[in-house]
């Protein structure tokens, strides 16, 4: 292995079922159901997925959902706003832990 991420992994993702086909089938069925039109539109779900992809920093998901968002009719401005939502939550999650820091500092301080 010369690299941890290979772009062809995404196209071959189905092979993950080779040694556990029933689990893979359950997962992919569930996955398909999640992204179907529901109370949220498929376009809205793709934007959420794009944001989550950035939060979990998955290059496969970023590639897949950048394309999916365009193909669902989202524009780059909407997609960028979605990434900022991920950024804000990640940043906010770090910052709000500052409250733990403050409590610890208060406990230790005179």
């Amino acid at each position, binding site marked *: 292995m010369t690299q941890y991420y290979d772009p062809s992994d995404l196209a071959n993702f189905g092979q993950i079922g080779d040694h556990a086909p029933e689990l893979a089938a359950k997962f992919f069925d569930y996955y398909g159901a999640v992204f179907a039109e529901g109370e949220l*539109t*498929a*376009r809205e779900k793709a934007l959420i997925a794009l944001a989550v992809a950035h939060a979990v920093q998955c290059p496969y998901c970023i590639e897949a959902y950048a*394309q999916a968002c*365009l*193909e*669902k*009719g989202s*524009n*780059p*401005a909407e997609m960028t706003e979605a990434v900022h939502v991920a950024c804000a939550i990640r940043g906010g999650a770090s910052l709000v832990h500052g409250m733990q820091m403050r409590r610890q500092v208060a406990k230790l301080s005179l």
Partner: protein
Amino acid sequence: MEPFAQTLARHDLTLTREPTDTLQVNVGFLCNQVCKHCHLGAGPGRSEVMDAATVDQVVAYVARAGFTTVDITGGAPEMNPHLVRLIHGVTPRAPRVMLRANLTALGQDQHQPLRELLAERRVVVVASLPATTAFQADAQRGQGVFEQSLATLERLNRLGYGHPGSGLELDLVVNPAGAFLPPPQAAAEKKFRADLKREWGLVFNQLFTFANVPLGRFRRWLEKTGNYQAYRDKLVNGFNPCAVEGLMCRRQVSVAWDGILYDCDFNLAAGLPLQGRAIHVSHMAAAPEPGSPIAVADHCYTCTAGDGFT
């Protein structure tokens, strides 16, 4: 990649004609824009323009064959000096006449009489608008095109186009601004209708989404940017056998600027004439026979990907 003809055969499908009720007329490759997705490579430098004699032969063919729809395209049809002659010729003969407009040419002040003629003759305007943002629209069609397109839509709306019940139909065509497939038509129509009404107070009747065909200038862009193979694979992998029955080429024939006939505008771009030989419109006694074969090539995967191109 499996050739398109082989894919059809593998699914026990044949691509043959239904009764042909539509004549698409490509009046030339001359255009005021240089769109990156153009399968014809149309632009200001192109000299292929339908002349008056061919226009008259096309009009005579419409009468002979009894087409119910005439679909005028280009290039920018407005730049053909004989467009008015064509419209005068076909509107009394075909119940439905459509003009595919890029909006920037149609919106020019000099074309005010043309816009009024279109309204008077109840010509359907089918306008290209790839996005509701300048970023994507201008990336595909050229700097400033989005603003000009909105201005033309506003002029058309003022004439009555796009308003329900006016009898003046204004439809939008959305081609993706890049190497990706178009959004589902119904969802795109809903979003465009909301965006255009909210932001600019504009209205239209219907919206159609079409995939970009990897021919001409778009093919060269795909190759130059390293997108060709992935885009082609996406089209091939998206082959939908159910889309074949509704393909537009089954009910339509295209005539090029020089009078030569093709099964569709994409075969025109690819140089694949009707029935494999250069048949001039003046030599056609009638519409192509039902059951006659349609020329196919690998670009046909564009029209069978997903929901298809109808």
